[in-house]
């Protein structure tokens, strides 16, 4: 009798444990599925990049060039510069030679990267709110964020991402509803139509040199 009771209670305990485990598993399932494929989530790509960059931006003790180098590594990992360059030239991309495409991508990437890194000391303190993510076509996504800095109006900062071979990468940044790549596209289109590629690449190189000189790198 005593024995039976013990067995029963043990069995009942097992059953309860199994049920609890199953409920737990069911509840946990979606998060497990998400954790399985971090690379397929545009929000995760943006969050990881921003959360890694924020401490570097806030850290005012380390010399600026060292911080810029650290940020360069994060940017290189999460941005698709060849797509940016291609997109910024629009239909003119197909009118220049592969060598020129390569040259343009290299100069434009450095220019874009430096134009952000030159401004890192303007970021005093603040936080980034991750607002939403939305699909923008089969392999495209927009991640909306808001940058809050003390004493300033919040800045709407949106990232446009592209899924290339299962890896989400940023190909455009929108600041207060102004797409940076679209802005350069209008500039480049005007220079290409009025003066041609030679002038465009020369102007871009001289702007890049001036920017690099002002950064002391």
């Amino acid at each position, binding site marked *: 009798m005593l024995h039976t009771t013990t067995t029963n209670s043990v069995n009942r305990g097992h059953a309860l444990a199994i049920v609890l485990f199953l409920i737990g598993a069911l509840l946990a399932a979606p998060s497990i599925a998400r954790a399985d494929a971090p690379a397929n989530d545009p929000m995760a790509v943006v969050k990881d990049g921003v959360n890694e960059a924020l401490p570097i931006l806030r850290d005012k003790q380390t010399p600026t060039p060292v911080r810029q180098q650290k940020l360069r590594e994060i940017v290189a990992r999460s941005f698709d510069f060849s797509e940016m360059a291609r997109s910024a030239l*629009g239909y003119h991309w197909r009118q220049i030679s592969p060598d020129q495409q390569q040259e343009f991508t290299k100069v434009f990437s450095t220019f874009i990267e430096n134009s952000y890194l030159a401004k890192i000391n303007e970021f005093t303190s603040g936080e980034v709110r991750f607002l939403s993510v939305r699909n*923008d076509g089969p392999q495209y996504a927009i991640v909306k964020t808001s940058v809050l800095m003390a004493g300033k109006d919040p800045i709407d900062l949106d990232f446009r991402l*592209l899924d290339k071979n299962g890896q989400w990468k940023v190909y455009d940044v929108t600041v207060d509803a102004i797409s940076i*790549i*679209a802005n350069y596209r*209008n*500039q480049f289109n*005007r220079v290409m139509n009025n003066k041609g590629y030679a002038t465009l690449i020369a*102007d871009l190189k001289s702007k890049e040199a001036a920017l690099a000189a*002002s950064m002391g790198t």
Partner: protein
Amino acid sequence: MSTRRLKRVEKASTTLSRFVSRAMLAASVIAVAAFAHPAFAQDLAPLSANPSKQGAVVKQAEQTPPGEDQGVYSDPLAPFNESMFTFNLKLDDWVLRPVATGYAAIAPLPVRQSVGRFFDNVNVIPRFANNLFQLRMPEAGTEVARFGINTVLGLGFFDPAETWFGLKEHPDDFGLTLRYYGVPSGPYLMLPFFGPSTVTDTVGMVVDAAMNPMTYLTYIADVPWYVPTAVGAGTRIADAVNYRSEHLDMFEEADRYAVDLYGAVQDAYLQTRDHKVKELKESD
């Protein structure tokens, strides 16, 4: 004495009504002319949307990112716009920036910010009217409340309506009202003194300016015509100097990151306006 006064008021009101009817007639003639003009019909469509007009065959590659065709505009008034852009830059370089720099040296930033808020508070009428035109009653009401609170409690120089009552400003203008009701933006237009605009936004600016009660002072009281004009121009200039003093490195900053400054300003203006129109339409 009182009859004379009555007659004068009567005379003023008939002059006013005559003026209003004439102004409406003139406005409709201008509107019809503008809408009929072929250049107006050409909206700021991206190149890919009207490749034939541009003489360039735009063949979209497969897997084109969304918004790829964004940021390339047709610019039929480019020669005029470009010279006005140069004029504005020179004007800024020679007059506006030096004056604003001198003013910034005398007046500390909080003072200049207060002056900015004063000008903003005074311009309540177009904001109220256009919110009303778009049937945004809560926003229009907020504008009235903000004006009352800020004028009485903040003397126009402070913004207690937002800081104490959480009432946010709802910027609006007639250019946005026209776009909201489906009028195309028309070609990009660089105005001397006023800066980037479009044909529609310019019409909107004129309509908004007509809402300034100062404009009608000549018709109501015995004030010579040049007084409201001078006061209007003076207000505009003071507002511009004050704004520029708050953004002293505006153009230097933009030029540092731009390869073609004209194109950068054009695109930033058009993207910002398009976004505001989209926001207005989506908020319904």
